[in-house]
């Protein structure tokens, strides 16, 4: 077996092992860290497939962006040291059964189809080829999806701000602060007075 094949199987075992740990561990912060390892393994798989640009994008967007966002939201919403509730046995049993049968079905289809055993032609993807085709307006150019996806990113950015914005109190918060403070002083004063009287 060549070194490239051994590296491929090592990367695959790493991805699948950390993926299984990410969906089965019961501490949510550890789950996020295992997901991080799995995404790094997928970036390594892209390096193995000789698409270095996609590997760089994977590391920047997923490892640098999405996992950090997930960890922030864990800190905002959970006690991260606490263990999550154990999944119901029946649910995890039937989930595992469905997954195993689905895997067997898809794998039998893949094995029967008879893909070409090996890549015959060389595959070299350069960044300038990607950039040229991404922004070209000719027949196989991707300028329209590029613009549409940029509008989608803008819309999702605005949508995130609108959804996660804290809803201010409806009955005039500027008035409430001093009024509450005055009331408290008054209450304090009366309490001291009653204390004195007592």
């Amino acid at each position: 077996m060549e070194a490239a094949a051994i590296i491929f199987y090592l990367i695959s075992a790493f991805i699948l092992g950390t993926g299984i740990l990410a969906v089965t561990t019961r501490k949510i912060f550890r789950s996020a860290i295992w997901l991080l390892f799995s995404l790094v393994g997928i970036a390594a798989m892209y390096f193995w497939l000789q698409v270095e640009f996609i590997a760089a994008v994977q590391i920047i967007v997923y490892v640098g962006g999405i996992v950090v966002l997930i960890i922030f939201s864990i800190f905002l919403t959970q006690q991260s040291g606490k263990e999550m509730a154990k999944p119901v046995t029946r649910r995890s049993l039937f989930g595992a059964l469905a997954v195993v049968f689905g895997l067997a079905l898809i794998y039998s289809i893949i094995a029967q189809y008879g893909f070409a055993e090996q890549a015959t032609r060389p595959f070299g993807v350069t960044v300038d080829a990607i950039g040229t085709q991404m922004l070209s307006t000719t027949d196989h150019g991707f300028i329209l999806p590029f613009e549409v996806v940029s509008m989608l990113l803008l819309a999702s950015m605005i949508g995130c701000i609108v959804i996660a914005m804290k809803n201010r109190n409806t009955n005039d918060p500027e008035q409430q602060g001093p009024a509450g403070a005055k009331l408290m002083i008054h209450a304090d004063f009366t309490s001291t007075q009653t204390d004195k009287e007592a």
Partner: protein
Amino acid sequence: MQILRQPKQTRRPDMNSIPLTHILFVSTALFCIGMYGLFTRRNMITMLMSIELMLNSVNINFVAFNKYLWPEKLEGIFFTLFIITIAAAEAAIAIAIIINLYRSHNSIDVEDATELKY
């Protein structure tokens, strides 16, 4: 420019000793792991993580098909790039919704959000 780049291309080691079906099997297994996580977990953040795993397995599939079957084209690469972009937007929106749900319900378990159930 092309002449200068040509020797670099040929010097690369040939890593095509793995058949395509093995890569497809890895990505299928990763998809099924994500599906298992989506079935069993009830916490919204962990369900989002499972969805990310499934999207990544699809990306591996696109790149592998592009490399093995149509190596002179770049369409699989572009699909992968756009899927990564849309997944980032989806994760950001999902986390905004999760934080908003946590503010109103004090919990991000999907069993607790039952206002629309009946």
